[in-house]
């Protein structure tokens, strides 16, 4: 059952990611990205991290995607036009080479990865909170609040009409 769910979510994630980068209408891309993020949340849950799965749905599929859709609707974005001859071919070749590089790296990583320490693996929200608020990560955690505040102020300053 877990297996079926895992591979179904993985296939859904890949297909919707293909739609994200293949679709000319950005609104459809955004909705496909929501599907990708939600199927990734399922995979996080199956890998034993309920906290990350919940964060994925709340922060990514909730907050960030609403922000994207809000801007798309605000700017009234139209379809991308086909522009003839802008050196897209060269870029496509570079992109394919990069993909080949990543797949090669995948082979290297997968041949070396030796899982097995999974028994007694506990990634519950309680354990996560204990680590996040331990002295090890506490100051980093507090620093992220300053980052969020800076991003908030920066976003308002950038999007203001007369700056």
């Amino acid at each position, binding site marked *: 059952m877990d297996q079926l769910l895992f591979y179904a979510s993985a296939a859904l994630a890949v297909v919707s990611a293909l739609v994200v980068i293949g679709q000319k209408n950005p609104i459809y891309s955004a909705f496909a990205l929501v599907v*990708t993020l939600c199927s990734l949340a399922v*995979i996080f849950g199956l*890998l034993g991290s309920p906290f*990350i799965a919940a964060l994925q749905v709340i922060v990514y599929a909730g907050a960030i995607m609403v922000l994207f859709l809000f*801007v798309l609707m605000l700017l009234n974005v139209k379809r991308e036009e086909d522009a003839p001859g802008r050196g897209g071919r060269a870029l496509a070749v570079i992109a394919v080479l990069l993909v080949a590089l990543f797949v090669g790296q995948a082979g290297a*990583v997968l041949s070396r990865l030796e899982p097995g320490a999974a028994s007694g693996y506990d990634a519950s929200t309680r354990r996560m909170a204990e680590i996040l608020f331990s002295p090890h990560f506490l100051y980093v955690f507090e620093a992220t609040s300053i980052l969020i505040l800076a*991003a908030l102020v920066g976003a308002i300053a950038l999007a203001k009409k007369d700056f």
Partner: protein
Amino acid sequence: MDEPAFVQHAVLLSLVLFALGTLGVFLRRNVITVLMSIELMLNGANLAFVAFSRALGALDGQVLVFFVMVVAAAEASVGLAIVIALQRHKDTLDVDAFNVMKG
């Protein structure tokens, strides 16, 4: 979910997602779609963190995923604010139109 194969396949999926995001950044011309492709790459990295955290039995990777999500939220808000400013300035969202630093 104790089968090791799942962890390996999750790493493979994360690589595929990262590669697709890279392709999107290179091939798309709409700034907002490029930003969405970057989100796709960040998600591929997150999945790799979770899979390795699972494989090694340590939770530090999951804490890093938390911080990546915070940074992604900040990046998306500032990036979209810049997109709004660009649209107001140049009246287009085509990345090829933004080719000068001083406007």
